[in-house]
């Protein structure tokens, strides 16, 4: 019974929140179109959070996430302005982010520096690079329509952004749950020294997690630019806390204490649903932040008290 609550409690909470809002504002919240709208609204946050899930799987943090979102959004426009074809520009952005991620991962794994500090420093560096690339200004113009379509419109009735989320989520779930890399990442996150002594190579595997997180953040930066048609050097600022909040909420779901993709999706959905529902009810945004924060605290506290009974 308690293990059932611990496994599915967070999911049940999401369902309860959805039902609650549906009753509170029946004509507006509970409609199919609004629910599809929510999946679209949560996409960018959820993809960043999935990147964070990879890093959390090895037991580390990536605080450069927000800076990488801004970096991706700006760099792609800078490349467009320089006349680089769109596919090449996108690849270059992902490649650049991968380099930053690889450096963070290498420093964390090879020199055993706290990832908190390493990625704080990397995030500061990336932020500086982004400002330098953009001269501190919001960039717009020269963005190809085809690129903007990546985050606009629908395919077969489903918003394109929602399809991105589905694709990334399935890919990350396969990597973490079905591929050898995932076994290694969780082993490192579970007990780094034991994994190392059992023959898991810490440095390349940890680097992979950071590279994945960095590339997903940069992807979100590009999707953000595609969606709003411009890029701001601080455009990713809001993603860091929300993404880790989603991962932490997700760690209370499905598996006990391990970052996992389905859980992260539930976590991101809770944050998105609460935001959407409260907006429809006309609750101010600062009140929304306070409520979201309280929900996260409550989820974590419920989990802690559940674990005490578990004898840990």
């Amino acid at each position, binding site marked *: 019974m308690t293990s059932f609550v611990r496994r599915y409690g967070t999911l049940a909470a999401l369902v309860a929140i959805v039902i609650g809002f549906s009753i509170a504002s029946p004509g507006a919240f509970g409609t199919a179109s609004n629910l599809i709208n929510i999946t679209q609204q949560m996409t960018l946050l959820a993809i960043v959070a999935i990147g964070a899930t990879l890093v959390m799987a090895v037991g580390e943090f990536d605080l450069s996430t927000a800076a990488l979102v801004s970096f991706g959004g700006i760099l792609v426009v800078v490349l467009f302005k320089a006349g680089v074809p769109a596919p090449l520009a996108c690849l270059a952005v992902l490649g650049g982010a991968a380099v930053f991620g690889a450096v963070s991962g290498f420093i964390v794994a090879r020199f055993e520096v706290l990832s908190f500090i390493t990625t704080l420093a990397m995030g500061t560096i990336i932020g500086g690079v982004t400002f330098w690339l953009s001269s501190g200004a919001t960039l717009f113009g020269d963005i190809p329509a085809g690129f903007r379509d990546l985050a606009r419109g629908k395919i077969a009735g489903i918003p394109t952004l929602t399809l991105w989320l589905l694709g990334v989520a399935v890919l990350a779930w396969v990597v973490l749950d079905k591929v050898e890399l995932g*076994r290694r990442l969780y*082993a490192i996150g579970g007990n780094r020294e*034991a994994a190392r*002594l059992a023959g898991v190579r810490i440095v390349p595997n940890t680097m992979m997690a950071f590279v994945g997180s960095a590339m997903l953040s940069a992807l979100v930066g590009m999707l953000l630019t595609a969606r709003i048609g411009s890029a701001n050097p601080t455009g990713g600022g809001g993603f860091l806390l929300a993404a880790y909040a989603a991962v932490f909420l997700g760690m209370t779901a499905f598996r006990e204490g391990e970052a996992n993709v389905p859980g992260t999706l539930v976590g991101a959905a809770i944050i998105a649903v609460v935001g959407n529902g409260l907006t429809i009810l006309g609750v101010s945004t600062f009140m929304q932040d306070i409520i979201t924060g309280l929900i996260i605290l409550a989820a974590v506290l419920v989990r802690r008290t559940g674990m005490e009974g578990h004898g840990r």
Partner: protein
Amino acid sequence: MSDADPAEGTPPFLELRGLKKHFGGVRALDGAELTLRTGSVHSIVGENGAGKSTLIKTLSGLLVPSAGEIRIDGTPVTIAGVNQAEALGFRFIHQELSLVPHFTAVENAFVGRPYPRRGGFIDWAAMRRRVAAAAGDIAPDLPLDRPVGQMTTGQKQLVEIIRALVGQPPRLVVMDEPTASLSDGEAARLHAAVERLSRTGVAVLYISHRLDEVMAICDSYTVLRNGCTVGAGRIAEIDRAGLVQLMSGRAEMRGQAQPPAPGSPTVLRLRDVPFGAQKRPVSFDIRAGEVLGLYGLVGAGRSSLLKLIWGARSHAGGEISLDGTSLRPGRITDRIAAGAAYVPEDRRHEGLIVSRSIADNLAISDLRQVRRAKGLPLTSRGRMAARAEDVRKALSVKMDAPWNGPLTLSGGNQQKLLFGRWLGTPMRVLILDEPTRGVDVGAKAEIHQLVQRFAADGAAVLMTTSDLDELMALSSRVLVMASGEITADLDGDALMPARVIDAAFQQGQRTTPKEPSV
């Protein structure tokens, strides 16, 4: 040498009578006796696991004995907690020092103690006066105002002693391996401090692996073996050989394992691998079917040497080869590919990934074995479960579902998982660090059979153990280490407990390393 031997006529300050402490089926103490007089420097000696630490813990209130009596000045007492031990005037100085590095000696002396106050504020002048007074008796030239992080290990030991003297006057100071990482000069200063301490009427319990030191500064001794006091008396009336004989006992026992068949090929070969603080070259061979035991006291460097061979630590120079193929320093994956296997000492922290399932723990060292299809890095849950089932059968592990966590198993079965991790590939070398620590008697016997089976199948086994009986039962040859050096290589008739213990207490020349080597 303590010049004032305590008079035999005075009543003993501390007596332990028939002290027993059982953990489940394990008897850590089984009738320990101790008599300690005021002003005496008394040594407790014994091999690993003889019960020294447990005995000290009963004095410090960390453990309550299962049976027996602790008497102070002839009156039985129960020491229920650390605070009570402190109130009785007992002070403990552990090998791992508990000082705040950026605090000075003066500041450290008052950590966790009531500070002297003046008008509600801390009275720094009074603090310094009290520390200086304590230091004046023991170590007059210790720099009291320097952060202890900048001090040598020997000076830190002195700060610990001074800390023990500040506040209520102590009646007993227990020192656990205080000179293990000290240079000659520092050790001499510490000895002088201990002597002055004892002259102030404090009783000192002194635990050391250096028998020369014990002979030099202690006036009486107690020898523990298997949790039991097997000898006690005045140092003046015994010599080093006598102490070794008491510690080892089992005079008639010889190595019980058969040596490998003549002509068995060498599997693992070390040539001039630099090891320890001195970077002394280590060389030895292990042949197919041979179980080589590696014995040494705690801190001798056994685990570090195993880790170096396993590639968990790197080395510069020398060569380690397996079946004639050289292994790159610090590359664990090289060892695994060549057919080596390793079972670490610390199951919880170095062995098991406790947050992952049993099946995951068994698969992690070779994920190719549980692939969905050859050449594709996709893991099959079905194959992981099948592999767990294979291991369960092969090693008779008592477990339910393979997807449960490893901590749902008993210690012995957890240990079997760490062996099972390496099944499925031909095993050439098996490196075992304390393979039966914390397992019950039945599981111990099963693990012994496992080790013998792997050896019989042609593996070269390198095993450390602190259990002398296990060492004698399994190994046909034993290397003994002391302070990072190999001090004996024993086999055949030479393989007897007294020789092993003697070599383990063979401390080399002291050096002046900044930090302990291993």
